[in-house]
Structure formats: C-alpha cells, structure tokens
C-alpha cells in the first residue's frame, strides 16, 4: 500500500507548481491575457486536485494506519563532500495533518478568490502566485531534509512578498511586502546558520537523522541548544512572533484572501510546524524549550493587547493571528505538541473563515476597512454575519466550537507544565480572556449597533463561489474539534493528565468573561473608549507596542543613513585621494615650467649651487 502511493506523493506539491508554470506561460500560447475563467480553472483546479489526492491518500492509507509513513526520493540534489541531500519527500501523520490544512483550506481560499478577485487586471498573476504559495508550502511540509524544507520556507516568503505587494501601483503595498520579506529573512538567515551548525555537528541534514541524533545527544548540549535557538529564530520570523512580529500587521496590504492564506493555511504556521517537526531537537534542550514557551507567552499577550484597540478590521485579525500563533508556541514550549498542531488546524479553519468573511464585508462596503465606519451590518449581510459570528466564537474558544477543544488541550498541558499553577498557564488564561474580548469587540463593532458611515452603501457582494467556501469553513470552525489528528505515533508524549476541575472551569470562563466585557462596552457600537481621546497606553497598544518605532530608530534609520553617507563609497576616496595628490604635484611642477629662459637659468644656478655645496661639504 505504501509503495503504491509513494509515487503519487510528489504530485501533491507538483500540481500547484504545474499550475503556476501554466499560469505564467499562458500568454505565451494565447498571445494575450487569457480570460478569467481559464486562469481560475487552472489555479483552483490544480490545488483542488492536490487536495483530492491528499484526501485519497489519507483515506486509504493514513486513516487505517496511524503509524503509516510515505516517502519518495525524486533525485539526488546535492552530493558534495560529506553533504548528501536528495530531493526527497516524506510524509507521516504530522505532515498529513499539515497537508490537509494546506491543501484543504488552501483550496477553499482559492475558490473564494475566484469570486473575490473578479475583475482585477492581475487575475492570472494572482492565481499564479497563489499556486506557487501553496506549492512552496507543500514542499516545506513534505521535505525530508532541512535544506528542502528551507527551499519551501523561502519560497513561501517570496510568495508572501509577491502577494502582499500584489497591488503594486500603490507603493505603500510594496513597502509592506518588502518589510515582510526582509523581516522574515532575518529569521531565515538565523535558521540557515542553524542548519549549518547542525550539519557541522551531526554531518547530516536529514530531519529524521537529526532528530534521532539529537535525542541521543547529551542533555543541554550547548550546540544543540544553539542550533535549536537558531531554528527558533527562523520560526519566529516566519510565524511573526516576538521580536520579529512587526511584518504581519502590515501584511494586510495584500488582497484579503491572501491574508487568509498567509494566516490560516500557509505561511505563519510554518514556524509551528518546524518546531513540531524538530521536536526531539528542542526536547533535548531545556533552554530552547523554555525560550519557545516564553516567546509564545509574551507574543500571545502583547499581540492580544494590541488587537483590543485596533480600528482596522484586518489589523484586528492580524494581531489575533499573532496572538494565536503565540498560543501554539506556548504549547510547543510546554511540550504539548499534539495540542499545538491541533490548534494550528482549528485556527486554520476559523481564521480562514474570519478573513474570508471579513473579505466579504470589505468587498460589500467597497473596500472600506475601518471598524468605526461599520456597524449594524447584521441585517444587511446575514450570511456573512453568521459566518463571522461562528469564526469569532471559535476564535474565542467558546465551548463546543473547534477552537475550544484545541485551546483546552493546550491550557491543560500548560497547567501540567510545572505541576500546577505557573506563569505560562496564567498567561494562557489571560490570553483567553483577551481573545474573548477582542473577538467579540470586533463582532459587535461590525455587525451590531447603529449603521456606520459606510454601512449605508453596503451591497452584499457574496456570490456562489464565495459562499461555498465560507459555509464549508463555518462547518469546520464549529465541528473541526472532532477531527483530532492521530499524532501519538509522531509525538511520543505522555497523555494529558488530570487537572483539578476548577482549572477546566477557569479555562471555560475566561473567554466568556471577555465576551461579557465586550458586550458591555461595544454592544451599541459606540463605546466610551473610542469617543474620547486615546490614552498613552492605548496608543502604545495601537501601534503594536511601538516595535515598529523602535526598529525604525534602532535599525532602519542607522542603516539607511549609513548607506546614504557612504553612497559614494568611502574607499573610493583613497584612490581619488591618490589621484588628487598626483594631480597637485603635477600642477606644482607644471607651474615651474613657465617658459622664461632666465628663470630656467636661475634654477640651473640654484641647482649648481646645491651641487657644489654638496661637493664643498663632503
């Protein structure tokens, strides 16, 4: 059975990539821009086939056999010295879970995009990038060695750059795109160094070999810790965690489905996947583990606070993503591998749902994104409202939604982390409360209360291709919690123990408390918080704790001013200086050649005097 399916494995990433190639090559056959339908069929169809293939493999193979493993070796990639790398794919249940999310949610977003992007003059380009995005993510997920993973990793970064800057005519979009790429590149460079360090220590880049070796390495080995921390650097960059989180809120410049794709299915989850994939390595170092946990916890809180005060519908969702990924990191840090991946899945469902329905709202309001222009949309966009409400509930982890199951698992593990009450767990609970607050603040501000200025022109923009993915995602966001991936074989971890009942209770109560607060403050759409001027703390939260300002002052400005000062290359002045001195000497000698014969005779005499003086003296 495994041998039978192995050859098909390569087709999963290959199909979207073929779609990409086909899409960029279309004008070569057509000699002009192909109709939208063609682009849509190629773009959506390739991902759809990929998703179907994934489902088929899961159904026939993985569902029956939780320890199933598929692998395929396409060709020898590199064989230099001790370095041997193949273009090899590998699939276990962890990869399978990711594949399901990427292809499944990816497909739904593609489908939604087909409607959302209707009429855009970059339609074909859009789908080409989208396909490349999914293809790169699939390579990332299925890579058997870290360099191949890195290929997908960077590919994802490139696609995010292309898509964030998709509407290139506005140069602000380009700036946001560049920011995303460069900030993640900083992390990626750390990760590349991690790869190099791992290779120089273990002599291999195969993920499984490294994991086995790391598991047998002495505990708290400095190299292993360092390598894990460098990999964490990469993960932090890609997953928009502290301190490299600043790119994600700006990444809203792209079309809304792109945000959905980046936040839900592909890019930002890569960091979580990487750490989960390399969990034996991280497990081998307590420092690295606690670093992961602390990064997660801090990000969770900081982003949560920022999300509470945003005024742009997409920015709220962006901060909530950072915050939720923080949850996953927290989970990874406390060793709740399954919980992290499970939350990744449910998050993909509800965040895709939220973004896509936010996209519907934005499209219906003619590209208005400010929360305070909205309000009362519940009556005008009932379907979208329903979807959005489900998404918010799931995000806030209200009981019996998908988000509840995964977050509960994480919080339980966090409770056990140090055998009871601890800072990480408390952060998680606080985060849950904040999540409840900001998600329902969003819901109330958009859909409840009185009509905002933009609500008047509201025109329901949903069409068939858009409602279908929304409905599917809504169902998944409600009941996705039942789809626990069987990851026991991948992560050999102790099952969650028993926590006191009140711990469960607190975990359930926290988001509800948040909901209640939001209800009190934002039910009528106009809140005391928005009418009066902002306090300093709110301003700080609004700007994402001023990280942008800090980095601008600390890194960007010095760099650009250094570059500006040195534009003409200071080293060049050495050579120009030499040339200048030569020229001056030349001028000096040149003035002595004045054409006056008597002057020459005088010089001659002086020379004779000096010469004779030498004779006399010597």
């Amino acid at each position, binding site marked *: 059975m495994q041998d039978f399916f192995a050859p098909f494995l390569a087709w999963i990433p290959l199909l979207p990539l073929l779609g990409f190639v086909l899409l960029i090559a279309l004008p070569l056959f057509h000699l002009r821009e192909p109709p939208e339908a063609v682009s849509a069929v190629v773009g959506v169809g390739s991902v759809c086939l990929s998703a179907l293939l994934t489902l088929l493999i899961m159904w026939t193979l993985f569902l029956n056999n939780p320890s199933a493993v598929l692998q395929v070796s396409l060709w020898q990639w590199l064989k230099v010295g001790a370095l041997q790398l193949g273009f090899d794919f590998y699939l276990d249940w962890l990869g399978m879970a990711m594949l399901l999310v990427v292809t499944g949610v990816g497909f739904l977003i593609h489908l939604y995009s087909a409607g959302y992007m209707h009429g855009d003059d970059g339609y074909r380009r859009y789908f080409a990038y989208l396909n490349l995005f999914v293809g790169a993510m699939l390579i990332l997920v299925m890579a058997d060695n870290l360099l191949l993973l890195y290929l997908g990793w960077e590919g994802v970064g490139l696609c995010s750059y292309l898509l964030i800057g998709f509407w290139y005519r506005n140069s602000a979009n380009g700036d946001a795109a560049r920011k995303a790429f460069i900030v993640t590149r900083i992390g990626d460079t750390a990760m590349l160094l991690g790869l190099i360090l791992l290779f120089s220590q273990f002599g291999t880049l195969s993920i499984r070999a490294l994991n086995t070796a790391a598991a047998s390495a002495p505990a708290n080995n400095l190299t292993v810790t360092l390598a894990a921390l460098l990999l964490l650097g990469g993960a932090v960059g890609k997953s928009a965690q502290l301190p490299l989180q600043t790119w994600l809120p700006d990444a809203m410049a792209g079309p809304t489905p792109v945000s959905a794709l980046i936040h839900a299915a592909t890019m930002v989850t890569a960091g979580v996947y990487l750490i989960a994939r390399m969990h034996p390595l991280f497990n081998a170092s307590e420092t690295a583990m606690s670093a992961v946990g602390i990064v997660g916890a801090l990000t969770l809180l900081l982003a949560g606070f920022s999300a509470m005060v945003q005024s742009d519908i997409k920015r709220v969702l962006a901060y909530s993503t950072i915050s939720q990924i923080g949850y996953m990191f927290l989970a990874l840090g406390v060793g709740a591998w399954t919980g992290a991946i499970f939350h990744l899945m449910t998050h993909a469902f509800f965040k895709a749902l939220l973004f896509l329905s936010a996209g519907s709202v934005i499209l219906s309001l003619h590209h208005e994104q400010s929360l305070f222009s909205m309000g009362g949309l519940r009556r005008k966009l009932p379907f979208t409202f329903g979807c959005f409400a489900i998404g918010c509930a799931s995000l806030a982890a209200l009981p019996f939604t998908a988000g509840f199951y995964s977050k509960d698992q994480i919080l339980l593990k966090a409770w056990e982390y140090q055998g009871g009450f601890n800072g990480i767990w408390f952060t998680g609970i606080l985060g849950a409360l904040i999540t409840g607050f900001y998600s329902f603040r969003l819901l109330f501000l958009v859909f409840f209360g009185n009509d905002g200025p933009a609500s008047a022109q509201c025109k329901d923009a949903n069409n068939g291709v858009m409602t279908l993915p929304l409905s599917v995602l809504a169902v998944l966001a409600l009941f996705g919690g039942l789809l626990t991936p069987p990851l026991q074989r991948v992560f050999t971890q102790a099952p969650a123990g028993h926590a006191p009942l009140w711990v469960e209770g607190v975990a359930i109560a926290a988001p509800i408390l948040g909901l209640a607060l939001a209800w009190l403050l934002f039910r009528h759409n106009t809140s005391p918080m928005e009418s009066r001027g902002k306090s300093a703390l709110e301003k700080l939260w609004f700007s994402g704790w001023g990280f942008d300002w800090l980095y601008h002052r600390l890194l960007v400005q010095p760099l650009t001013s250094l570059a500006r000062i040195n534009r003409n290359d200071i080293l060049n002045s050495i050579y120009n200086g030499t040339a200048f001195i030569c020229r001056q000497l030349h001028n000096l000698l040149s003035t002595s050649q004045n054409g006056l014969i008597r002057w020459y005779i*005088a010089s001659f*005499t002086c020379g*004779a*005097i000096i010469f*004779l003086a030498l*004779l*006399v003296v010597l």
Partner: protein
Amino acid sequence: MTAVIFYISAATATVATAMVISSRNAVHALLHLIVSLLAIAVIFTLYGAPFAAALEVIVYAGAIMVLMIFVIMMLNQGDAAVDQEKAWLAPKNWYGPALLTAILLVQLLLLIFSGAEESAQRIHYIGPTEVGIALFSHYILAVELASMLLLAGLVGAFHLARHKRIETSEAPDAD
C-alpha cells in the same frame, strides 16, 4: 714683469666684462666684449699658449664678434632700445642674480683653493705643433665631429635666417 702684465690683463678683462653686462648700448657692449677677449688672449700668451691666443683673437674677437655686429645692425634698434634697456636694468633686478652668483663664486673659489698644495708648480709652454699633433692623432674623431657640427650650424643658420614672407604673415599665431 709677467706678473704685472697678467694683473693688468686680468683687471682689463674683468672690468670690460662688467661693462658688457651693464652696458645699455649693444654696440658699446660688443666693443667691451672685444676688449675683454683681447685681454684674455694676452693671458693665454702668458700661460704659454700662443696658438690659443691667436685663435682667440682671430675667431672670437674677429669672426664671431663681426657676426654679432651684423646682427645688431640688422636689428637696427636705435635710441629706443637704449631706453628700453634702461628700464630693464633697474637696480632691483640686480639683487637676486648678484646674490646667487656671489654664492656660486664663493663656492667655486673654495673648491679651487681647497686643492692648493701644488700651486708653486711652473707653467709650461705648449706650442701649436703639440696641439696639432694631439688634434690630428688622438682627437681626430672629435675633429671630424666638430667639422660636422660646423656644417650643421652653417646649414641651420642659413635656413633659419632666411626671410620667408609666408611665415611673417602668420606671425600672430606663431606663438
């Protein structure tokens, strides 16, 4: 007796030379120069070199000076030239050259007198015969070269001194 003649000749040569360099009239200067040359011819005789003295008188004071006289006459400068010279020979123009030359002279004298131990040696008479033998045996090649030089000088002088109408017409830009 010889000493007296020597000193008189030496003084004559020096004074005449000084007059040459300070004279304002070209013809006067030339006449002074001839006097100086003649005085040196006397000194040559005193040093036992009668052939050189004869050549000095014939070639230098005779031929060369005549040549110069011709040129001065061809230039035909007149009184304006004297005024011009007067302006050029302002006293302030003399300080620098005089200083330089004085230093040079002091150095030369220092050098001359630094090897003074053999000064008591006699002067020898060297007649035309010996000079002729030396010229046409040891220095024969140099003599040939000198003759070629003279020929070249002849041709060159002829060529350069020719009066060409075309060239004078483009005088302004012959810079």
